[in-house]
């Protein structure tokens, strides 16, 4: 399912226009992006939580050429699946 399919399904399920559904989807993900950029946690009960984890830099290799490269430290959002979603997916 892509973002545009989610918008269509949301519009159908809620009986709202595509434009209104698009606004809802955009506000939802922009809210989460803004929080993660500020390094705040995101917690959606039943779905999961996100937090930004810091990763150290390391020396790695380009797997194609074998060339030695420096991988710089980075921050990435880590998703921990919520209990309800975890159980529904594994049924």
């Amino acid at each position, binding site marked *: 399912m892509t973002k545009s399919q989610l918008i269509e399904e949301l519009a159908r399920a809620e009986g709202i226009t595509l434009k209104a559904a698009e606004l809802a989807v955009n506000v939802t993900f922009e809210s989460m992006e803004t929080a993660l950029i500020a390094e705040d946690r995101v917690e959606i009960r039943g779905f999961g939580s996100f937090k930004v984890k810091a990763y150290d830099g390391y020396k790695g290799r380009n797997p194609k050429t074998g060339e030695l490269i420096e991988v710089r430290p980075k921050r990435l*959002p880590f998703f921990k699946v919520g209990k309800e979603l975890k159980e529904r997916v594994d049924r």
Partner: protein
Amino acid sequence: MTLTKAHIVENLFNQNVFTKTESAQIVETLFELIKQSLASGDDVLISGFGKFSVKGKNQRRGRNPQTGDPIILSPRRVVTFKCSGVLRERINP
């Protein structure tokens, strides 16, 4: 601070398009639709945010961390998340 569903509902309500009740209902349905897609084994790709994938894990031998007893972990399906390049750049300016 932690962003919760209540904050998202508030942000949606502040767009002056929906009532508070409608905003809450819409956000609830939005996450339910994502959960339904993943539960049916279908990945969810939100451009600019990231991709939620359902991955199958094979059966493997593990240990009870408390007793050290060997146990067989059954095959299972798990959800993984990969951050989009756009979001990654915004988090690492």
